[in-house]
């Protein structure tokens, strides 16, 4: 590494005040400039931020979008989640592989292209999709892949090859993406028209405590999946001792099959930022952070522009709406490819510039969160709902939905249905009603709540979507009878194995164990005892894991064992040779046979 490069890196660090808490931004910029964060670069960054090189290495090695090894000038990240694979991602991958003469995971020798897989990028309603140099390409085909390859080889920028852009703000010059919103059903809470400042002007007319009362009265609960009452969270954060308070918006929607926040960020950013500002007013925060998943980098410039306009309109900044001492601003923190950062304490770790490891609780974020200060972490949809409640009243909101679940929920629906997309529906709708709406009546299985939720069979389609029955952050996948439910469960286990932070034993090791044993059954080498083994290992992982990831990651196995047990049993057929099906003697002896140079005696016949 030359002195010139070291100087560039020092400059980047200086731009962030040499603050090690801004490590995500620093590493991201170094990566963008050099195509990797090499070991010498780690040393320079550590020096310029007064930390240890191993701490930088720890961050670089944690996030999927950072690499120590040089990446190609173009990086293709092909989404390989279940839905994208159902709609041809494997064929697209093969087309890319043939066009560039490399395998997925490799870089062309001339450094032109790196080809990678990445889990759900929030485009399950327009699969197969990929991220190419931060730009999104959707509805990929083998022809499209070959065309992209030609464009890249000709030296042109990939997104210049696309004339078409999606609907709504996807066509905005700062977005310019071929993404489609696919908002199929608009409801009054999220996707209704909104005038900037409408909620905020009402908020500042009353006291912060009054705002918290309104949110509590609305019975709004967190939309990310856990369902914690928002008003209580704000009250705790407001009441906790701390020189400063923070409000963080969790826009790291990474649950496979979720893409609702994408549409909110594209079409309703003002509603979201207004919700954050109202929240900041309520809890007494001067600063808010929008943690935006790295997959949505294509929205960054646009969102920064929305923030700038809000500052001009005095909806952010000093003395908001002329209220003395009401100072509040928002910065955007980019993620870099880590599902775990959707967990609120992991998200805080990431904002603080470290690995996305969840933290021990207690203390809870409301007591000690970002940089040790009381912090409220809310979902994108929750904050939008909060803004709307302040605008239209808690009674208006609480009148919608069901008894224990007030308001409406955004569902991201994908898979084997005629109209995949985003639906704003009142809580309490049944799975059957939902399937009729999306044209998925023939479904054999429905995944509610993403892989960490439940896979249910037809026998349970009368169940309802609400906190008291089928709780969900919003991901719904529809599977037809022709899909292999165990193969789907296995893919979800592979996802959790990849996305575990590795902090606690059960999640780090246990998910690999479950995945391997399930694969053994799929391969026809299972035994009846494997089902009980899967069950009790799954229960240990759920009971002992430290955060929500490990506490829910065995769900694909547990819910299929419960609802699709025949799928397991039909693959476990007793053989009459008295051999353990899991033990393949030919394979066990193969290495020895190779060394000895002859077949084992019992196989010579």
């Amino acid at each position: 590494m030359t002195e010139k490069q070291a100087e560039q890196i020092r400059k980047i660090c200086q731009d962030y005040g040499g603050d090690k808490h801004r490590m995500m931004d620093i590493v991201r910029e170094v990566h963008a400039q050099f195509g990797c964060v090499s070991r010498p670069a780690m040393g320079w960054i550590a020096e310029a931020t007064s930390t240890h090189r191993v701490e930088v290495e720890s961050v670089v090695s944690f996030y999927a979008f950072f690499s120590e090894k040089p990446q190609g000038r173009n990086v293709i990240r092909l989404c390989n989640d279940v839905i994208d694979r159902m709609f041809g991602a494997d064929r697209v991958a093969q087309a890319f592989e043939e066009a560039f003469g490399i395998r997925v995971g490799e870089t062309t020798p001339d450094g032109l292209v790196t080809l990678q897989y990445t889990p759900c990028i929030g485009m399950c309603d327009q699969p197969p999709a990929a991220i190419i140099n931060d730009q999104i390409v959707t509805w990929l085909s083998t022809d499209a892949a070959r065309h992209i390859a030609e464009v890249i080889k000709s030296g042109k920028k990939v997104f210049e090859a696309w004339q078409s852009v999606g609907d709504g703000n996807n066509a905005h010059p700062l977005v310019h993406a071929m993404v489609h919103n696919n908002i199929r059903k608009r409801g009054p809470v999220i996707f209704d028209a909104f005038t900037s400042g409408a909620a905020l002007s009402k908020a500042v007319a009353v006291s912060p405590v009054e705002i918290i009362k309104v949110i509590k009265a609305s019975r709004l609960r967190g939309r990310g999946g856990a369902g914690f009452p928002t008003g209580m969270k704000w009250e705790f954060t407001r009441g906790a001792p701390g020189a400063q308070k923070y409000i963080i918006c969790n826009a790291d929607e990474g649950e496979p099959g979720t893409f609702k926040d994408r549409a909110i960020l594209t079409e309703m950013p003002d509603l979201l930022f207004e919700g954050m500002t109202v929240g900041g007013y309520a809890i007494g925060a001067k600063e808010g952070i929008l943690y935006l998943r790295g997959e949505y980098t294509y929205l960054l410039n646009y969102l920064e522009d929305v923030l700038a306009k809000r500052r001009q309109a005095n909806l952010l900044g000093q003395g908001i709406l002329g209220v003395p001492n009401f100072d509040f601003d928002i910065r955007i923190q980019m993620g870099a490819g880590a599902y775990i950062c959707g967990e609120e304490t992991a998200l805080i770790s990431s904002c603080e510039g470290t690995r996305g490891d969840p933290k021990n609780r207690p203390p809870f974020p409301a007591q000690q969160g970002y940089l040790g200060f009381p912090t409220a972490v809310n979902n994108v949809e929750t904050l939008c709902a909060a803004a709307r409640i302040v605008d239209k009243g808690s009674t208006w909101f609480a009148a919608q939905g069901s008894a224990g679940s007030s308001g409406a929920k955004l569902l991201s629906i994908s898979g084997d249905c005629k109209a995949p997309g985003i639906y704003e529906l009142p809580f309490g709708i049944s799975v059957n009603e939902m399937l009729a709406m999306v044209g998925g009546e023939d479904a054999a299985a429905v995944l509610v709540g993403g892989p960490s939720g439940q896979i249910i069979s037809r026998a349970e389609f009368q169940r309802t979507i609400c906190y008291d029955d089928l709780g969900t952050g919003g991901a719904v996948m529809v599977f037809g009878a022709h899909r292999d439910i165990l193969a789907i469960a296995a893919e979800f286990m592979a996802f959790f194995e990849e996305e575990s932070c590795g902090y606690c034993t059960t999640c780090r090791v246990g998910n690999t164990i479950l995945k391997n044993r399930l694969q053994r059954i799929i391969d026809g080498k299972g035994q009846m005892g494997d089902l009980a083994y899967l069950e009790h290992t799954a229960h240990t992982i759920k009971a002992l894991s430290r955060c929500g990831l490990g506490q829910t990651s065995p769900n694909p196995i547990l819910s299929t064992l419960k609802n699709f047990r025949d799928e397991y049993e039909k693959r476990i057929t007793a053989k009459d040779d008295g051999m353990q099906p899991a033990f393949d003697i030919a394979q066990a002896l193969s290495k020895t046979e190779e060394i000895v140079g002859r077949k084992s005696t019992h196989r010579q016949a």
Partner: protein
Amino acid sequence: MSGKITLIIDGQEIEAEIGQTILDAADAAGVYIPRLCAMKGLSPHGSCRVCTVHVNGRPQAACTQPVAPGMSIENETPELKAHRVSVIDMLFVEGNHYCMFCEKSGNCELQAVAYRLGILAPQHDYMFPCRGVDASHPEVFIDGNRCILCGRCVRASQELDNKNVFQFVGRGIHKRLTFNAPNNLSQTDLAGIDKAVDSCPVGAILRKGTAFSVPIGQRLYDNEPIGSEIESGRRTNDRQV
């Protein structure tokens, strides 16, 4: 108020001080809760999950959970034992542990907890990972095969040695321990006398030239199971009563 509260562990009432963790309170009361990543003098980590107990019916790591008045804690139940056996097994199959010729045998906490829980062979399949060995340092030897990622060396180096020799890199099943150096351990400021070296519960960090200074048969856990030292504290207290 003296800051003293009472709570119940396995039906037995014990006294605890506000601010203590369940693990510390249990230790003081002579009740052994198995643990690996927790170590006296280091901040709690909560990563190995071996010390999981049921607090009013909910699983919690005893090493990170503060005591509260009226807590009813279950420690020795068949269900918790099954969980602990499973998680100890996971640590064994995740790495490459060869007790029969490991110089830490008898002083190894992983081995000792496994014996105490009655583990003879793991229920999970071995993963046989390829992990590195670093013998570059003149006084200390590191074998990644035997590392259980408990983070004791990471914390001991930071909190007791005022250094920052160790850290984790990678994530999930690929997570591993590494050092604050461009290439190897000898480039760090680790010294042979560092507390971080002693903090390793297994045979992953070893001081060179000391392997068999205490012969097999006379080691920490050769004659009494791990936890006896904590429980014998209770016996002493009983006699005093």
